Structures are given as structure tokens and as C-alpha cells.
């Protein structure tokens, strides 16, 4: 049993290394590749289980895809599997990014590169806006949510409060608000 776990972990590591090389645009493409490899081809898990991993992965802190990899790896091959999946998925992006940083430092003072970078930087705000639009629907559900969002915006712009603290305040506000709602429903 132990042996098969280790060999499973190794096979997970190899597959996740490969997946890690070809994932652009966030975690969803990784989920799609996991679906193809492990649900359709190898039948290690069902669609429902994969969905559970992604939704739990999204609701625990950190990288959604790192979390989903750990949940899947643990399910398939225990702790070694979890480690194999996480480092398999993480190592390729780290190596590629190190190369990019090296190139970035070489070329960033080049005149043409800095002109192009002015354009690239101008595109960042639209990119953030397009991501924000997708979040609005799931994040802003009622008046309470609008209030929290406005408070967070004001705290960011007008105080020097640490953003991590703002997240914790948001969590606290969510817990209190839902508690109040539950009591109201009961009575």
C-alpha cells in the first residue's frame, strides 16, 4: 500500500509539472486540465469531487489552485501526494518567472522596451477592471456588501491601514451580519 502511494505521488508530481508549464490566465485552466487527466482519462475522481476541491480551495486562504492541488493530491495519495501536487504545479512557474526577471533587468532601460512598457502599464488598469467586473456579481449581493466595499475603499484610500487587517475586519463583519440574519430568521 505504501509503495503504491509513493509511486502514485511520483506520477502526480510528473503530471502536475507538465500541467504547471502550460497554464495561462489563472487557476481555471489548471482545473480544466485536471478534469481531463484525472476524471476522464484515469477515473481517479468524479466531476463532483473535483468541483468540491475547487470550491473548498477557493474558500481557504491562499492560491486557489495550490489549495485544489493539495486537496486532490491528499485524496489520491495522502500527504506525499499533496506535496507532490503542490510542488509539481509550483516549480515550473517559479523557474520561468526567474528567467523573466533576469531578462526584465537586462532590457528595462532600453528605450524601445520602456516605450512598450508605458503601453503595457496603461493596460493594467483595464485588466484589473475586467477582472473586477466578474467579481462584482458574486461579491456584492445586498446593501451590507455595498457598505463593506465602500468602507474598505475608504480605509484604503484615506488611511494607512494594512490591507490584511481590512480583510480580517471584512471577515468579522460577515460573521456578525450572518449571525444577525440567522437570529432574525429564527425569531
Amino acid at each position, binding site marked *: 500500500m505504501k509503495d503504491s502511494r509513493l509511486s502514485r505521488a511520483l506520477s502526480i508530481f510528473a503530471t502536475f509539472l507538465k500541467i*504547471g*508549464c502550460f*497554464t*495561462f*490566465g489563472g487557476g481555471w485552466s489548471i482545473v480544466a486540465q485536471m478534469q481531463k487527466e484525472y476524471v476522464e482519462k484515469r477515473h481517479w475522481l468524479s466531476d463532483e469531487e473535483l468541483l*468540491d476541491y475547487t470550491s*473548498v480551495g*477557493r*474558500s*481557504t*486562504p*491562499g*492560491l486557489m*489552485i*495550490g*489549495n485544489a492541488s*493539495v*486537496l486532490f493530491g491528499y485524496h489520491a495519495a495522502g500527504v506525499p501526494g*499533496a506535496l507532490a501536487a*503542490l510542488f509539481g504545479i*509550483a516549480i515550473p*512557474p*517559479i523557474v520561468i*518567472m526567474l528567467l*523573466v*526577471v533576469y531578462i526584465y533587468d537586462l532590457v528595462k532601460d532600453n528605450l524601445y522596451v520602456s*516605450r*512598450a*512598457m*508605458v*503601453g*503595457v*502599464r*496603461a*493596460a*493594467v488598469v483595464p*485588466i484589473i*477592471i*475586467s*477582472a*473586477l*467586473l466578474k*467579481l*462584482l456579481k*458574486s461579491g456584492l449581493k445586498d446593501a451590507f456588501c455595498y457598505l463593506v*466595499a465602500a468602507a*474598505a*475603499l475608504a480605509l*484604503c484610500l484615506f488611511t*494607512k491601514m*494594512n*490591507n*490584511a487587517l*481590512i480583510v480580517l475586519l471584512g*471577515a468579522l*463583519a*460577515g*460573521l456578525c*451580519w*450572518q449571525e444577525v440574519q440567522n437570529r432574525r430568521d429564527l425569531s
Partner: protein
Amino acid sequence: MIYLELYLSFLLIGFTSFGGMSMIPLINDQMLSHGWMTAAEVADIVAIAEMTPGPLGLNCATFAGARTAGTAGALAASLGVLTPSLTLTLLAAMFLEKFKQSRLMGDALYGIRPACIGMIFAVIVQQSMANYAGPLFGFLSWPALVIGLVSLAVLLRFKWSIPKTILLAAGLGLILCRI
């Protein structure tokens, strides 16, 4: 020690964010308050991270760590951002069935999501001030503004992918900007 500082900084970012764009405000905050990067460099991170494979948060950690303290810094920062997966999520994996039914996490997220949205709005304000600054009327750069509007249009109206949009923006930058 810079490596420990980087590790702790990205550990904090990891534990208080929930992946993707929700990480940008926290990374922005940490980079600027430590003086590790300027707002323009944070914009470079976002653009470069969107064009290389892997999750955004990990890309940002590697980039920021490497720019601040070389390869060892990159590893320290990356390990920091992966630590929540290695600890909390591994625990959750062991108690998956119980965790799935936990109402507490859902209740907390009900407040965290809008807080993240508010913080992202703040980043948009900050990034706009950093990236559209220039000589026009004393404070606006018209090439940057035009490129921003074109990018917004292709992203929203024509559903272009982000890497494709960034390439277009770079091309426009080469043509329009004379520094």
C-alpha cells in the same frame, strides 16, 4: 534579514487573500510600505504575471522576491505564498467532509468578498494615478490614456484574452510614446 521579511510578508499576503486579483491590493500594499517597489513596478508585475504560466499570486511572489533579493528571495517569497496551502488546506483535506459543511467559513467570506472588491477599487485609483500621469494638462499622459481606453474596449467588447491585450498595448506604446 531580507529573506525572512519576504517570507513573512508573502505569508501574510497568502493567509489574507483568496487567490487571483484579490491578491493585488495586498501585494501592492506590502511592496509600497516596505519600499521594495514603486507603483509602476507593481503594474509591471501584474502584466508580466498575466503573460507567464502559473497562478497570479505565485508569479507575483517570485517576481517581487527576485527583484528584491535575487533567487533566494524569490524562493522565500514563493514559499511564503504557498504556506497556507501547505498548512491550512492540508488540514482541511484531512477533515474535508466536516469542512465542506462549515458555515463559519462561508459567513466570513460573505464579508471578505466585498472588502476585497473595495480594496481592488482602491488599487485601480492608485494605479491610474501612477500609469496615466504625464504632461497633458499638467497631469495626464494622452498616449497612456488612449492605450488604456483601447485595452478596455478590446477586453470588454471584443473579449480578447489578457496576453493578447498586453501585446497590443505594448505595440501601441512603441508607436505612440516618445520619451
